[in-house]
């Protein structure tokens, strides 16, 4: 069970959080084609490596934040605010 660092509450067990999936998705507007819309809705990078995702401290402060986590080792490389740009982990 992982431990995640909530930016407000600090280091807590994974069971206090809910994963919201990939972050930094750009929503197309209503004029987008079906292809663009479908890509946004369903198609994902799904990396075997560093994944930028959003989590919510559901059983704590209730706040959302972003983090970069490796999907094989589960190592958390960085935690950053929802409105921050993603740090580079390449």
């Amino acid at each position, binding site marked *: 069970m992982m*431990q995640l660092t909530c930016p407000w509450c600090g280091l807590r067990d994974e069971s206090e959080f809910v994963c919201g999936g990939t972050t930094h998705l750009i929503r197309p*507007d*209503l004029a987008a084609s079906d292809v663009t819309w479908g890509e946004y*809705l369903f198609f994902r990078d799904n990396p075997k490596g560093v994944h930028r995702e959003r989590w919510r401290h559901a059983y704590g402060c209730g706040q959302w934040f972003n983090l970069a986590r490796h999907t094989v080792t*589960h190592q958390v490389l960085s935690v950053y605010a*929802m409105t921050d740009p993603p740090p580079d982990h390449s």
Partner: protein
Amino acid sequence: MASQRLAEPAGTWVDRSHPLSFTFNGRQLSGFRGDTLASALLANGVRLVGRSFKLHRPRGIWSCGVEEPGALVDVGRGARRTPNVRATLLPLAEGLAAESVNCWPSVGFDVGALTGACAALLPAGFYYKTFKWPNWRLFEPAIRRMAGLGRAPTAPDADHYEEVAADADVLVVGAGIAGLAAAVAAARAGARTMLLASGEHPGGALSWGADAEVAALAASARQLGVRIQLRTLAFGVYDHNLVCAGESVSPEGAADLPGCVLRERLWKIRARAVIAATGAFERPLLFPDNDRPGVMLASAAHKYAQAFGVACGRRAVIAANSDSAYERAVALRDAGVVIVAVVDRREGSTAGERSHGLRVITGAALSAVLGTRAVRGCTVTPLAGGRGERLRCDLILNAGGYAPAVHLHSQAGGKLRWLGESAMFVPDGAAPGLVSVGACAGVFARGPAVSHAAETGEALALGRAPPQAPIGGAGRSDAITRVRDVKGKQFVDLQNDVLAEDVALAARENYRSVEHLKRYTTTGMGTDQGKTSNINALILMGEYTGQAPSQVGTTRFRPPYAPVTLGMIAGRRVGALYRPLKRLPAHDWHAAHGALFETFGDWCRPAAYPRPGETLEAAAQREARTVRKCAGLLDGSPLGKLEVFGPDAARFLDLMYVGTMSTLRIGQARYGLLLNENGTLVDDGIVARLSAQRYWVNTTTAGFDRTAAAFEEWLQCEYADFKVVITPVTSRWANITVAGPRAWEWLAKLGFEAALAPAAMPHMTLRDSALDGVPLRVLRASFSGELGYEVNLPADHAAALLGRLWTHAAELGAALYGIEALQVMRVEKGYIHIGTDTDGTTLPGDVGFARGIERKAAPFVGRRSLLRTASRDPTRLQLVGLVPLDERTQLPVGAQIALRPPPTLTEGHVTSSYRSPELGIPVALALLKGGSQRTGEELRVHHLGTTIAVRVVKLPFVDPAGERVHG
């Protein structure tokens, strides 16, 4: 049977002043406090303890610990029955009753042994090659009866379990001398240190002797405040350095246990640094019939002699592949066991030269074992060839070398390397977050092990890099110990009866990778998890395929290191604490007024209030009739409630809902649909405006958590610049719903203010009010289709208001009504219930809300998906009403609609169905392909072989003009 107890001082763990009696297979025996079941059985000369899995060969006690493959017993009865207990780990208790497993009628005479006679027909994987005709199912029952070990309990567990979280700077797993040294050093350097010992006595392999250094370290540890947990076995390393361990609090078996005890405790430990000091297993040698009772690990016999004071036999032959054989021999001889010979298979071994008085035969191996239920003797043959010599013995001990217990290291992601000289895998450097010391690190020499462990403890306490492990000291052990060119079965896995020839077969058939080998032969898949068989299996596969053991590879170790009790993993999350039910604030009031409670999602709610002798259905019909005729009272407290507040609240709600909420006047309410981005319906509810910047949002009961979370996600992640605050208030406000033509009359009797009267407050408005100082939020809304008031008030006042309303019920002819009656009425009105009349594919247009969408210009969640062609397909499933042609037969929910009987393409299904008390006929809602254009059509619905003729009708069934809500 003659007692096998050795004279004191042997038996340092055993208290001979406290005898205990127990039964084994019904036979009364005795032992002492401090014995395990295994040591007590051995003391009583019991050698035959079980039967192996496949061939039902006799099994005795083979080890003195967790690696035991044969001595498994079922303990206890009823709710305390525990199957597959290792006799080697079970502390003896007064009245303990244990039975052998996997044998019938008895361990001594087991019918299953017949399979042993057909062993040649049953090589590894034999079942893949046959049993194909006529089909497997014909043979399966018999094979299943032969398989399996213990018998499962049939009653729920009487005992309970708990979970504890702990954290430490340094966690040391294993309290042998290396572990103790590491813990002491870490504590001395200022770290909060925790030490786990799987047994009763710290000291590991030195815990039964009077080792001064061990005693000193243990004393220092206590003095320095090291938190020592005995009887606690670390079974897994998980993400981010979580170590889970199981503590045995009340071992099974004692006859005088109270009704319910805390049996085991799960420890979840987070440590900045973890030190594994888990020791090493002794590796057995391979030789013909090496599975007979009386063949054991040398270290086990040594421990039984010194710790328990039990002789495992009186005349021992030691099959040696390691220098350790000689210390064992001397120790056992000193304890009173005759060492017939040490048979050292290592050519040119000189280790025996220093052992005075021992007969040592080098360059030789056991080529035969005599005796089936107990060892009687063996034949020793030179490896170079020549005549064998028969030796008379009743005990054959394996001193085959060591296999470091690298499980935790591997679980943590550490790598392994093969140490050829000692034929063992050792950690190749540290694992992330976990460092190994002592034998499990491959450090076998005592002095270096202790100093390396201390340096490691200190380094990790101070946050420094740990020193490299001085691997070595185990001496020379041959990798391959299989005896060539002899008859007889050489066992690799003693529980699953995997032979060397099975590994050869796997190699021959190309099941050569380690995982294929394991799965094909089942080696290592028994309850001992291959602790003493995996390495030999690997070595054998290497031998047969011409590879070094490291090339064959190892399987990745996964938790649990040893089998762990399911109850301990679940802990307190059992019974009523598993997904606890939520209750209404006035639950007791409802119970006192005849509520029939049912579970709706996670809520416990009144389904109805049946009178004596009334069925649920009849009660619901009566309640619905009463609401429509006079008035009714429903507790709607679980309904989701949110307050949405801020300058951007209106704009935000417009984005969330299909409807437009920004145009609501203060006090006005509107029904809204919520979609997900894929356009499908996920929730519905009423939104009311409290002020310019404050909204009162209702969601469905089941959808509340999901909707609240979705709102927060949109707000915080996508519209982070919006100034909106969302506050969940479901449990703060109770909701008492009063519905029916006399609803207002009822409320007025209590003194509800005139501003709330139907003439003053139109349908779909919300007013803040008060009653006798209690704040109210009154919403005129209706799910029943009648004049309705949802009175929201602070939850702790709910029972009082219910009570006050109820005092006037009789004079009005009013009734309490539950969920069932509500469902009856809403179906009569054609109102959908999300999740019942909709599923994950339903779009708003399917349930009649297409026009609402067209009217709204602004974007909202899911809008783009509604523009896809598939979303506008006229043949989509659409909500319709159905009535049976005979006006009598109730349509079963889930019945499928089609003109022809199955098998055929379905045109839809019935989603909700009740008898309408108003119309006196059954009515139903259904989803029907292109249903909006099919009013009047006659169809059929099919349910489990029956067929009912129906007609498609327009909704609603009752009060089509919707006049009643206006009062």
